């Protein structure tokens, strides 16, 4: 934790300065007129707000990703003891990754990696 403190301090310091730089110049300025604030569409106009129930075309992928990522969290401690455990660790992770590749392979075959 002691080593994390400088990392956290660097985060906080740069965050504060960047935030101040972003916010401060515009804080006193009046809002630009409405036509200046229209969304940039190269001379075009939208009919609605951009904020909407956005149809992210890759939603099955995000679910596969969450499952995969959860497994990855086991791998960090595994990597640390790998040299000590030797072949056991290799076999163990081999089985584990083979299982997960099945999941990815299935998703690919079912065309779940493409835009829905």
């Amino acid at each position, binding site marked *: 934790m002691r080593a994390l403190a400088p990392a956290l301090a660097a985060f906080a310091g740069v965050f504060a300065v960047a935030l101040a730089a972003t916010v401060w110049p515009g804080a006193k300025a009046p809002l630009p007129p409405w036509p200046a604030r229209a969304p940039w569409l190269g001379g075009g106009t939208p009919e609605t707000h951009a904020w909407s129930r956005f*149809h992210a075309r890759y939603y099955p992928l995000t679910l596969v990703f969450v499952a995969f990522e959860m497994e990855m969290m086991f791998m960090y401690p595994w990597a640390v003891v790998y040299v000590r455990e030797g072949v056991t660790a290799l076999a163990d992770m081999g089985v584990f990754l083979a299982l997960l590749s099945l999941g990815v392979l299935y998703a690919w075959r079912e065309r779940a990696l493409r835009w829905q």
Partner: protein
Amino acid sequence: MTVLRRLAQDAPAPVFVARGGGAGLLPVELQADPRLRMVGSARHATVLLAAGRFAGAMGDALDRVHDQLPSTGAVVWWTADPDAARPPSLAEATVFGGPDPVEAVLAAHRRAVSQPGARRAVLADEPPHPFEGRGDHGQGGEGMMGGVPFGRAMAMTADDRDGLALDQLPLQLGPFLLGLPNGVRVSAVLQGGVVQEAELEGLDLGEGRALAGADATGARADLRWLAEALRLGGLDALARRAARLARAGATDAAACARVAKLVRRSGLPAAWSKVGVVEGEDARSRLERRLRFDPRAGGRRPLPADRIGRALAGQDWSDALVTIWSFASVGERAPAAAAP
């Protein structure tokens, strides 16, 4: 402060170019000049360079872009008919009639960063729909999804190919968007970044004299087209190289061939393959045809706009832009204007 201004004056001028009638793809060549930096959104620019004629709906679109330029920005009108009628956005613009507007743009840039007088908006300062004080909370909305909160309606759901019914975004894009030919505007309905339906509109480019050098044929025309295609693909440095060759008259066949080789190695043809398939031909093969810089290969029949519009349905928006640009004919009459 003066140091800052001096630095800013000497910077490459970030310029947004709006191509109007009689400009062809000539303005594309401007990126060859290292003192300019072409930007993709007027919000990033200090100078709005309006090239050619802006009549009717083109003028209206230019007015909107003019107002979106940061308030310190300057406007330059590059025209062959300085006496022609002009839209309000060009009323106070610096008029330039010569063949090479770089110096005029640089002067405007220096003015914009050193003595930023606030440029006035030309459109009325009012929201798209009146909303203040209306509705249950005074922000123009009704209930969950109704009304015009903050001046605009909310998007509504519609069926889609994957069985979900999420929101559609109906909008008009262009005519001054990277990858749209002169005078072409797209009315599209997007759902989740995928085009559900799209229609290409050819706006009236007006009558009058064209800019000197606007017409180009053969390799020079292909290089102009390629320079914009490369920018669309994120290859700005190669685009500048193509623009330099075009500007030099496209006489160096070996240099053109080297550009073509770099483009083929960049993966752009792969990114364009199977995109915008019409009559069995995809954007990649249309790109390849340009890369041959063969004067005999040009002059293919432009495709009717409604055919292109139909080809956009089901594509990701960025692929749709690639499709449109892959059909762009280099001459004035862009695909949309061709009769079906």
